[in-house]
Structure formats: C-alpha cells, structure tokens
C-alpha cells in the first residue's frame, strides 16, 4: 500500500466514524429524513460562504453550513406550523428548493472552480491527500484529516459531555422537559452538530452519501443491541469497516470511493437485518416457528378446557374438528396432538381427546395470566 492509499483510508475511516456517531441519535430520534434534508442544504451554505470568502478552505464554510442546517430546520418547522402542509411534505418542499438554488448557483457562477455539480454528489476522497495543511511550510498531512478529525473529536466530546441529556431527550422528551432540560435546545444543538459533520464530510463524500454513513451503520448496530453505548461503539465499528471495505472495492472496480463506502455500509446493514441474533429476519422466523408450535399446543389445551363438561364436548374434542374450528391443516393438527400427547397434556380415548391434569393446569395458568 502506498502512503497515499493509507492516507485515503485513514481519512475515510475518520469521516465515516464521525458521521456514524451523531447518526445513532438521528436513527433513534427518527430524524433520518431531516438529516437527508440538511445534508442537501449544507451545499447552499457552502456555496454562499464560498461567494463571500472566495475560498474553499475557509472555516467560514463550516459556520455557513451550521447556520444553513439550523435555517433548514427552522424553515421546515415554519412551513409545518402554518398548518397548510404536513411534516413529511414540509421537508420535501424545503430542501429541494434550497438544494436547487445551490446547484444553480454553482452551475452559473462557480463553474470553473473546484465545485461542480457532479463532484457535489461524489465527493473527492481520492484527491484529499493532495490538499495538505501547510502552516508555515510544514507538512502536517492532508487537510481533510485535520478538519474531519477535529469534527470527530468535537462530536465525540459532545456525545460524552451531553450523554445523559441526549439519552433522556431521545427516549423521553416529556421527562426531560419536566427535569428542566430543554429538549428544544438540545434539538437545535444536535442539528448543528449534524450540519457541521455533514459539511466536513461533504468534502470527502459529497452531499447525498453522507446520509448513508450517518444512518446505515447505526441502524445495523441498533439491530444488535439495546444499550446506547454499545450501539455507539458498534456503529463506529461498522462505519470503519464500511470505509475500509469500500475503499478496497472501489480500488478494485476503479469507481467512486464514496459510492463504494455507502454501498458497503448498506451491505453491512443488510447482513445485520438478516442475521442479527435476536432481531434479525432469520432469527425471527425461527423463533416464530417455534412459538407457533408451542402456542398451538396451548391453544389445543385451552380449547379442550373451555369445552370440557359442556354439551359440545363430544364434538369439540374430535381430532377432525380441530381442522375446522381451529383452522389447522390436518397434518399440522396431527403434529400438535402428537406433541401434546408426548408432553402428557392430552390423551386419546376412542378418537376423542381428553385433557390430563397437567394439560388442565397448563390451560388454567395461561387463562389466568
């Protein structure tokens, strides 16, 4: 591996971890689409800031972006509060408009600078090592690494310092308000973090793909754990993995690194979705199959119990009857009966089923519960 390749991978990892950490709260607070909106509109902040300072390296860009993030939420809220448009449509109105203004400004006025419409979507991770930080002639490494590393630290600090507040305002905003934390202040502060991170990442991965790095790794982590700090840790891990594998896949296919990272993040999510131990699709299907059998056995016991000593008992306890009233296929019914007999819940007498004491107890317990 060449030094440049190493640098790119390091930057990629820093970028994706920096995105995934606040992303955890985006997923948990159901603000994923707001982040989609913000990552689009920060472009306008960048463009406007660029027109003012005429440079792509100024820290003013970060402020411009953070301001644009807050402006976006404010606008969406304002639109929603008119009562004329629902929340989802408010988002869908505001960000395309702001994004369109940005794209038009770029196309018309920034054409020959480092900002063109396609790059906006692709980011320029491959070129990052070539833009270096050189204060006073000393090469400190790629600028992107310093900027994004700084943002990562900032995000990390924010999450650590405000961990309790973030936790409460995420899971129980009413309680938070009662305790004196303002959920609204937290909301705006958090969205500013998201905007700043989006802008920092924009340089590396462009506009839309930031969303992939912010949402997919945390969503995967959320399928693996219930504990907040574990989710944070796993998100960072998945993000880093997506960055690494994404880089190498892009290297092999000679394609966009950012797109590749997003794809890998998606693949990791898919794997978690399917294979997660408790909450994955496979595990769920297996569990439901098990439960269906156990549940059916219980239904049989209760059914027999409810009809014991009633005039219909004779009929209701025939095995054939089960198919009709319990809507069981014949082979399924036979299987359940076999199981119930083996568990000593029922016994067969002249083609009818009768409950044993154990079966009766099981039925009683279930009905009481």
């Amino acid at each position, binding site marked *: 591996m060449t030094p440049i390749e190493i640098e790119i991978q390091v930057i990629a990892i820093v970028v994706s971890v920096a995105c995934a950490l606040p992303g955890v709260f985006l997923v948990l607070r159901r603000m994923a689409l707001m982040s989609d909106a913000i990552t689009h509109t920060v472009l306008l902040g960048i463009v406007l800031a660029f027109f003012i300072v005429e440079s792509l390296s100024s820290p003013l860009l970060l402020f411009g972006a953070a301001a644009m993030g807050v402006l976006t939420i404010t606008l969406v809220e304002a639109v929603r509060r008119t009562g004329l448009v629902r929340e989802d449509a408010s988002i869908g109105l505001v960000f395309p408009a702001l994004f*369109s203004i940005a794209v038009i400004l770029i*196309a018309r006025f920034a054409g020959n600078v480092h900002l063109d419409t396609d790059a906006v979507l692709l980011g320029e991770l491959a070129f990052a090592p070539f833009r270096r930080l050189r204060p006073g002639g000393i090469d400190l490494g790629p600028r992107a690494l310093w900027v994004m590393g700084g943002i990562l630290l900032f995000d990390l600090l924010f999450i650590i310092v405000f961990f309790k507040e973030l936790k409460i305002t995420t899971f129980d905003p009413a309680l938070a308000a009662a305790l004196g934390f303002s959920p609204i202040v937290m909301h705006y502060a958090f969205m500013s973090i998201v905007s700043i991170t989006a802008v920092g990442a924009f340089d590396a991965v462009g506009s839309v793909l930031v969303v992939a790095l912010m949402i997919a790794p945390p969503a995967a982590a959320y399928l693996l754990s219930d504990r907040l700090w574990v989710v944070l840790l796993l998100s960072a891990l998945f993000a880093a993995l997506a960055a690494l594998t994404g880089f190498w896949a892009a290297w092999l296919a000679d394609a966009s690194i950012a797109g590749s990272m997003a794809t890998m993040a998606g693949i990791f999510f898919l794997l978690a979705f399917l294979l997660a131990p408790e909450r994955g699709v496979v595990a769920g299907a297996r569990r439901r199959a098990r439960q269906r059998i156990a549940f059916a056995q219980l239904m049989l016991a209760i059914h027999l119990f409810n009809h014991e000593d009633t005039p219909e008992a004779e009929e209701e306890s025939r095995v054939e009857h089960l198919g009709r009233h319990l809507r069981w296929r014949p082979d399924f019914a036979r299987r359940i009966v076999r199981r119930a007999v083996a568990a000593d819940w029922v016994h067969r007498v002249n083609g009818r089923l009768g409950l044993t004491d154990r079966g009766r107890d099981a039925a009683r317990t279930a009905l009481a519960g």
Partner: protein
Amino acid sequence: MNLFRELFFDYTLRTVALGAGSLGAVSGTLGAFAVLRRQSLLGDAISHAALPGIVLAFLLTGSKNTLVLVLGAAVAGWIGMLFVLSVVRGSRIPSDSALGIVLSVFFGLGLVLLTYTQRLPTASQAGLDTFLFGQAATLLMRDVAVIAGLGAVAVMAVAVFWKEFKLLSFDPEFGATLGVPMRSMEIVLTTVLVVAIVIGLQTVGVVLMSAMVVAPAAAARQWTNRLGRMVLLSALFGAAAGVSGALISASTRNLPTGPTIVLAATVIVALSMAFAPERGLVWAGIRRRRSRRAIQVDAVLEDLFALAQQHEDGTHGHPVAVLEAMSGGRTGVEATLRVLESRRLARRLPDDAWALTPEGLREAEARRSTRSSTA
C-alpha cells in the same frame, strides 16, 4: 411572447415543453395521493433508488434508449420500495431510517456503477450523468413519446381505480370491509407512482424528482377541498412548473433543468400558500388583524361608555392616559380612538381628551344590551 413563437417553430423547445409538461402532469396527479397518504418522501427514496437501475440497464443492453433506461429505473425503484417495506415490517428500524438507507445506499451503488462505466473504453456512457440533475435539452421526440405514453397509462390507472384509490387514501380499513382488495390496490398505486417518477428522471434528474411529487400536490391542496379538483390542479401545476422550468433551462446556458423546474414548482407552492382563498396565509393574516381591531374598537368604546356613565354629562372628555390604563397598558389605544373618530363615534376634545359623540353613546348602549341578551 417571443418564447411562444419560438415554441411553435423550434423543435427542441417544443419537444422539451411537451416532455416536461407531460411528466409534470403525471407526477402532479400521483403526487396528490402520495402527499395525502403521508408518503411524500417515499418518492425521494424511489427516485434515488432508480439510479443503479438506469446504469445497469445501460450496461446490460448497451442501449441508451429511453424506454430501456426507464424500465431499469422502474425495476430498481420498485426493488428499493420493497426493501423499505420489508425493513419496516420485519424489524424495529423506523420507517424514516429505512427510507434514508435505501435512498442513500442505492444511490451510492448507482454512483459506483456510473463511475465504473465512465472508465470503460466505450465512451458512449456520456449522457448517463444527465440523469443526476436532469437535462431537458437532451430530450428527443421519441423520448417524449415514452414519457407521454407511460404517463397516459399511469393517469388512466388513476381514472379507472379512482374510487379504490380514494378509499385507500382516506379509510383503507373501511375499504377492506367493503370487499375491495386494499393490499392489491396499494401495490397498484405504488407501482403507478414508480412509473410517474421514473418517466421524469431524464428531465428532472434523480436527486430532485421527489419535489415534483410533493410540490404541485401541496400547492393544489391550498385551493380546493375536493379530491377530484385537487388532483386536476396538481396535474396542472406540475405541468406548468415542468414547462416553464424546462423552457427556461433549455434556453439558458449553464442551467441544469432539474433545479430550474423545482424552483418553478416551489414558487407555485409559495404563492399558493400565501394567496389561496381560504387557506392563504396573507388572507388569514388580514382576517386576524381585522378581528383584532374589531375587538379593540369594542373594548375602547366600552371603556369610554363606562367612563361617561360616571358623569352627568355623557360627553365629558377623558385623557388618553386614562383609557390606556383601563386597557391594561395595551398599545394601540390611540389608533383605535382615531378609528372611532373616523366612524364619528368619538371625538377629540381640546387638551387631548376624548369623549363619545351622541352617536357613540347610542352605539355603546346598543352593544351592551346585545351583549347582555346573548350572555
């Protein structure tokens, strides 16, 4: 006016206007249902998810025929939508995250495929990246035929299934009890939505097409309370945004079509939200001010009356300060007094005192008796 003449004689402008108008009308029509069903952002996911489908269709067939690419887009969009539904139904991931994941990951895959094809020796991929932000100027008449043709099918589906779509959007459970197959109808509606979106991708682009599903419908909602009219208006607004945006973009250099159309649509929404007859914010503001003023007039008149009753002479004057105090220090008392003056219900006395005119006295009495009789 010049533009209109050019429209008739210039092949490109005519093509562009027809294509953009058609897609706008169709996306407006379907957008009405998407917005009413709170699925505004599903359109965003579908359109972003379409990108890998477009590129794959090109890679597999080597053709850039619009129909082929649209088909690829539709398949990919449909798969993306299925993913969203599976994730939501099969896990605790909330729907907005599912949308965000599908949107960005599929899009990322699309970009990978796009940059991959850019490196291929066959340089004929040029033009695929117009699908990012759209380029109306690349439309040919046969592309417009595809757009209009598929669009017509979509609109016809809406006409045929009108009752069912209405039930689906308003009260799906009730619809199910009528025996209408709601789940199938949902699939049909979503499929038609996918079609409405993918026919617009060449003109508006993947990134911004979702706005064409949201904005015309949001605008239309402000003007009417009937579903049929809302859908028609939405189609109209969509077509208007499409045509105006596309024409402006096609006749200006360095102006990608997608953003231009979206801005046109946004202007329409903003104007609708401000000026629509009942719901318009401007009128609502005026109504509010008017009622506030009426309340103030009533209050100050009552105060003057109360003061007048404390004196033998009903026309005794009282300084403004007293009235302001009675108003609980609220501002605008002077302005209200002037309004009363203009209606000849009060008059200003020398040394800045105010008193009721005889007419004002009668008016105040009348109002008081109305108040007590309705109390």
